[in-house]
Each structure stands twice: as C-alpha cells, then as structure tokens.
C-alpha cells in the first residue's frame, strides 16, 4: 500500500510533467519524471512477514498486581530479508507496561532472530490473552506500508489477590469457628494411623508397612483414620448492582478477594469448599478439596463479571437442599436491591446452617464515585444498618465491610446474635 508520501510524490511527479509540458519547461518535466522513477525503482523492493513467532510467559496464572515477564522470539524463516519490519505484540489495554517495550523495528536476514522482552503488570483479575503479533513492513523511504499479523495468542488467568485471614479466625470472639479437618475413629481416607490389616489386591503400594512385612513375611497395609472435613459454602453476589464503585474498589472486587481468601484458607485446612456465584445465572461448584478445587475456585472468581439481578432466595431455594447439614455458609453480598435476602437467610438458619453475611457497604463504595448529598447518605446508611440488624436478628453473623477496611479486620468485627 502506498503511503501518503508516495501518493504525493507520484501525483506531484505527474503534475510536474503536465505543468512542465504546459509551460514548456524541461526542468519541471525532468523533476516530475525523476519523482515517478523514484517510485518505480522503489516498487522493486518489498518486505515480507513470513516470520516464526514464539512467545514465552513467566507464568500462565498469576495474582492480581503481579508482574508478568514476556519474551517474544521472532525468526525470519524465509530465504530473503524481511527489510524494515515493525513488530508489535498486542497486549490487552488492561495491562500496564512496567519495563521494556512490546514492539521493535528490525531488519532480519534469512534465518536471523530477534527477541523482544517486556514486563507487564496486571492490575485487574480476569482471563486475558496476549496477541496477535502485528507486523508492518515499511519501505526505507516511507513510500509503502504493508500490514500483516501472526495469529499467535498466549492466554493467562489473573486471580484475585489472596489475603491472610488465619489470624482473624484465631482471634475471632465467635464460638464454633472452623478448625479444619477433625479425626473420626473409623477407618477411611485420612492421615492418622488406625490399624494394620492384610494386603488385598488393589491396595496402594505406598500404604504397605515394610517393617511388618520384614517381621511377619506377610504384606500388611497401614490403615488410617477417616478425616471428617467440613463442607464450606461460599455464596458470592455478582449481580450488576455489585459493580458500584471504582474499578478496584467495588463490592464485587472486594467480594472476590474475600471469597478467594476464605476458600484458600479453608482448603489449606483440608476442608471442602464450594463456590456459588449468582448473577444473571447460577454457577455452582460442588464442594471438594485439594489444589484442583483451589484452581477451579480461583479460575471462576477470575472470570466473574457483574451482571443480572437474581434474588438470593432463588439461589437458596434451588441449592439449599444440596447443602450438607449444619455446614457453614458465607454469603458475600452488599444485600442491596434484593428484598429476598432476609427470607433467604432465615431459611438457611432455619435449616441449621451457620450463616455469615460478609456485606461490603455499597453506599460507601457509591460515595467514592458519586456525590451523595449528606442527608441522603445518612438516611441510606441508617436504612442499611436496619437491614444488617434485621439479618443479624435472624440468627446470622453479619459483617458490615467498609471500603477502607482490610478483610481480616472485617472478619474480626463479626457481630454475633
């Protein structure tokens, strides 16, 4: 494609030729001819974008606020020079370039390579993709430009940040805090020794007690005590109303941090954690333990976006029956714009669940972005307090979470019934 300079040069050349003929001036005609000749001579050279691209990331998954190191290796696999080639690695606009540059101007000979290295910071959680790689061949004299791209993407997930909540649970005044796995005196999967028994085909080799074998000559298996783990349910409000506030400070962001931190804490203690996210639809991740469950929860939380207006009671009505009897439930919601919250909580409490409502104060988040008249703000606050009080009155533990409060600090402020 001709650039503006080439178009002007060509048009100027033709014009000079014509005007030169009009006024019989040889200099103008020759000047015009030389311009045209220049364009024609340059048309003989062209670059290409036949390059191989290999991108390496320092991590596929990282936490919000972490740095990501990226290296892009560009190799000319053609038999001729690329000529002046601008290479640009498309980075999502939500990521900040910390150091280096995601582009380079290069001229690669046959088989030659170049490396582009840069560091990104991801201030937002989510699923992101780096790529494609844009290529632009530009003529030496800026007479032609050709745009191409290499369809090469690198995906990654940015998880919400994890906060340390252990101290909050240790220091909490509330009784019946969760202490993780408790041992039952029945054989089953666990860690504590229960008894020795004979080996039956199918038993894992790692459980064979070799000392006993040496002693008796028979294969014996170490049987363990079954660990009783608690099923913890985290219900996260991801309705559209949860977006109120700034990009980094809004009920949903706070909620995802809380959900991730809680899930991480309890999974570390080998409890089963389930995640329920309700927005315009209901997403239910059944309770499970281990790193896999941890990854699933973090991945779900990374992709959460505020949308929809599903009432809480619809969630509890559809899922309450699946909840393990007496299992604790964390509801992370601003409780704003949903008249069914008290009934839902009453219902859950009535079923014998330990309900804790972690409620980011949406009014205070709204105050960060909108100018609320003082009197209206006070009345809204009072109304919110009434709501919190009524929820507490149904038997749940209510945490009124202010924007500037840390999660562990908020958890310490649990209000008992």
């Amino acid at each position: 494609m001709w650039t503006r300079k080439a178009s002007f040069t060509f048009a100027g050349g033709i014009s000079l030729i014509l005007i030169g003929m009009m006024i019989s001036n040889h200099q103008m005609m020759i000047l015009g001819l030389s311009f045209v000749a220049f364009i024609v001579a340059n048309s003989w050279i062209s670059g290409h974008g036949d390059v191989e691209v290999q991108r390496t990331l320092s991590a596929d998954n990282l936490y919000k606020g972490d740095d990501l190191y990226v290296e892009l290796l560009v190799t000319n696999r053609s038999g001729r020079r690329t000529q002046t080639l601008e290479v640009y690695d498309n980075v999502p606009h939500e990521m900040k370039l910390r150091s280096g540059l995601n582009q380079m101007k290069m001229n690669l000979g046959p088989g030659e390579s170049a490396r582009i290295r840069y560091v990104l910071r991801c201030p937002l959680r989510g699923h992101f993709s780096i790529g494609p790689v844009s290529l632009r061949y530009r003529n030496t004299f800026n007479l032609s430009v050709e745009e191409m791209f290499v369809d090469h993407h690198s995906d990654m997930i940015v998880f919400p940040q994890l906060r340390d909540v252990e101290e909050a649970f240790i220091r909490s005044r509330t009784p019946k805090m969760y202490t993780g796995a408790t041992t039952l005196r029945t054989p089953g999967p666990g860690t504590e020794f229960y008894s020795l028994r004979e080996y039956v085909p199918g038993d894992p080799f790692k459980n064979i007690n070799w000392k006993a074998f040496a002693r008796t000559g028979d294969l014996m298996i170490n049987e363990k005590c079954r660990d009783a783990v608690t099923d913890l349910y985290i219900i996260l409000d991801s309705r559209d109303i949860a977006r109120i506030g700034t990009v980094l400070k809004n009920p949903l962001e706070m909620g995802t941090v809380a959900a991730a931190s809680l899930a991480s804490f309890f999974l570390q203690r080998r409890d089963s954690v389930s995640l329920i996210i309700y927005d315009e639809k209901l997403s239910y991740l059944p309770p499970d333990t281990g790193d896999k469950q941890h990854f699933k929860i973090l991945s779900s939380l990374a992709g959460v976006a505020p949308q929809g207006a599903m009432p809480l009671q619809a969630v509890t009505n559809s899922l309450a029956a699946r909840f393990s009897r007496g299992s604790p439930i964390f509801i992370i919601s601003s409780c704003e714009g949903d008249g069914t919250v008290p009934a839902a909580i009453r219902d859950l409490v009535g079923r014998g669940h330990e309900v804790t409502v972690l409620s980011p104060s949406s009014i205070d988040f709204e105050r960060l972005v909108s100018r609320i008249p003082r009197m209206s703000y006070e009345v809204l606050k009072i109304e919110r307090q009434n709501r919190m009080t009524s929820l507490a009155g149904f038997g749940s533990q209510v945490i009124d979470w202010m924007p500037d409060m840390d999660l562990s600090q908020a958890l310490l402020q649990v209000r008992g019934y």
Partner: protein
Amino acid sequence: MAGEVSPQEEGNRTLHLRTLRKQWQIITLQVIATVALVWMYMEIVSTYVVGSIDHTILFRMLEQEIGSELPVGDWLTGLDQQGVASYYVPIGVGITIGGGMSLLAFQPPKRQQKIKLAFVIGLIVILSGRFLMNYLWQLWGDGWTVPDNNALATLEWPLLTILSMVILMFYLLPVIMGTRGIWGLSRKGVAWCIGFVLLFLAIHAILSFPVVKAQLGGYGDKLATLDVLVGAPTVGFFGMNLVTEQQFSLIMIACLIMIFQESAFGVIRQLEYAFRLPESCKRDPEYVKQVDNVLNGHLRHTVIFLTITTLSTMVALGFHSVLLEFVEGVTGSQWAAQVSESVELTLTYGLVISALLFLALMAVLRFFVPWQRLWGLIETSLSRS
C-alpha cells in the same frame, strides 16, 4: 506458554543519542546529504544563476552605486572569481554558518540564550559602537548638536557589511538551512531548504515562460532559459548516448534534491526512533543489533535506489529514440508509418510519453525478475560460509 524468561540485558553499546549520532552509518548518511546539497546547489547555480542573476552582478551594481568597494573582502564574496568558482568560498561560509547553528541547537537552553544574546549585542556594537563613541565625543566637545559627517561616516562600514552579508545569506539560504537540517537534525531545516529550491525553480519557470518573459523587457533577456527542443544526446553510460548535457544537469538537480532529502530525513527518522525507546531498550543488545541492521539497510537502499533512480531517469529520457527505431522497424502498417513520422515523437510530448512508457515497463518487469529471491539465496550462502 509458560517458561523461564530472562530480563532485558545490558550491552556495551547503547542507543543513546550522544552515542548513536557518532555511529558510522549516521555520519555517512549525513555526509552523503551534505555532498548532495552542495552539488545540487552548484548545479542550480551553474544552470540558472551564473552570468544571469548571480550575487556578483548584484555586488558590482552596489559598488557602482556607492562608488567604492564593499567592505567585505572579494575573496569572501567570490567577486575575485569568475563563473561557478565565485560560489566556492560562499558555500563554505554557508556550511560553516549552518554547522554553527546546528551546534548551537545542541547546547543547553541557557547557553543558547547567552550565545544568541552575545550575537545580538555584538551586532549592535558593530553597527552603532563607533558611531556612538564619535557622537559622544562630539557632544562632549561641541555640546548638544546633531551628529556631524564624521560621526555619520562611521555608520557606512557596518551598514554596508551587514547589507553584503544579508545579500550573501539570501543566496546561501538553501545551503545554510540544509546544513542546519542535516547536522542539527532538524526536519524544518531540510524542508525549508527543499522549499526554497523548489520555489526558486518554480519562479524561474514562470518568469522564463515566453509570455511572461516578454513582459519583463530587458530584465527578461538576462534570465537564463532552457532550450525547448530536444538536441543530440551526448551523455550516457556503457557506450549509449542517452541525454544532452543540459538534460543531464537537470537530471542531476532533480536526483540530488531527492538524495539530499532522503538521506537527511532518513537520519532524523532513525535517530528519532532510537530516542523514543525506553531506557531499558536503549541498553538492550537486541535493540542495538536491530537498529544496526536497519541503519545498514537504509544506507544500502539510499545508495542503490537513488542511483537506480538517476540512471533510470536518464534511460527514460533517451528511450524515445529506441521507441522511434522500434516503430520504424514495424512495417506494413498505416499506423506504424504514421506514428514513426509523427511530430509528437520529435517534440517533448513524445519524449515524455516514451519516458513514462519506459517507467511503466520497468514497473511491470519486477513481476518477472525474482531478484529478491536470488539476492536472498546469495545472502544465505554467504552467511553460511
């Protein structure tokens, strides 16, 4: 794909402007631009100015008017020389002034201000220093009187000197602005230089148009004009005579304008790219290596493609005789006979049409000659060995 990623390295060479400016490719391009500028100026001057509207005529007229020699030495203004030689020293002066302006542009702002202030004060002192002293002495001796002839006479030398320098600078404007643009890395300077040159050529073309020239009377006769009809070619290469001498100098003017422009702008463009890189990239050996590659490519292309442009313009202008022979050789056709004898082919119309035809053929030929692949094969085998 996740893996081990090392951070950006730091090499010995960097792309900071103070280092990059001294790189051989940059210096070479700047030298090419300067040579093209001076050569182009000399061609224009020898074709259009010398003996017609050159500065020596103006200076002589001035000397005649004032009845004495100008205070500026003849060696400086070129009055002691004839023809094109009268421009050698002034061109040197122009390059020096342009170079000085470039050097000034790279100084810190405070120093620039001081130098400019010193220059202005110096100018004022030269202009009015002696006069003031004389007048003050007169006032001291004679009291409140108007300045006498002695005092006024002291103004003559500085005024004439400044006038001579102004006239000389006016003639040397393209050289001064061009040098400033090349060595001071100023796009504006290069653009002004090209603008002046094209403006001069355009004004000359208009003034030498017969209708306009007739209106100028005696002044029009002094204007150097170009022949209208094509003459016998005497300049060419490989034994082929393609263009006349006059056409050759016109071709050189056109091509040298382009060489100057492309070299100067190329330098500025590449340095600007390097300047805009972040600090870590300026130290990264990868970036340094690729900037080297790009500069080498730029230099190669500047030399090769501008040479091809010059040669192809020459061939294009000489192509009409080839076309004539070809058409004459085609027999048995009324049209062929008509065209072979057409007046158009002998006038500039035929010349231009055949030139454009040649360039069109040249443009189409690239689809049949895979030169880039061949060159790539050569480059690959050279790099392997």
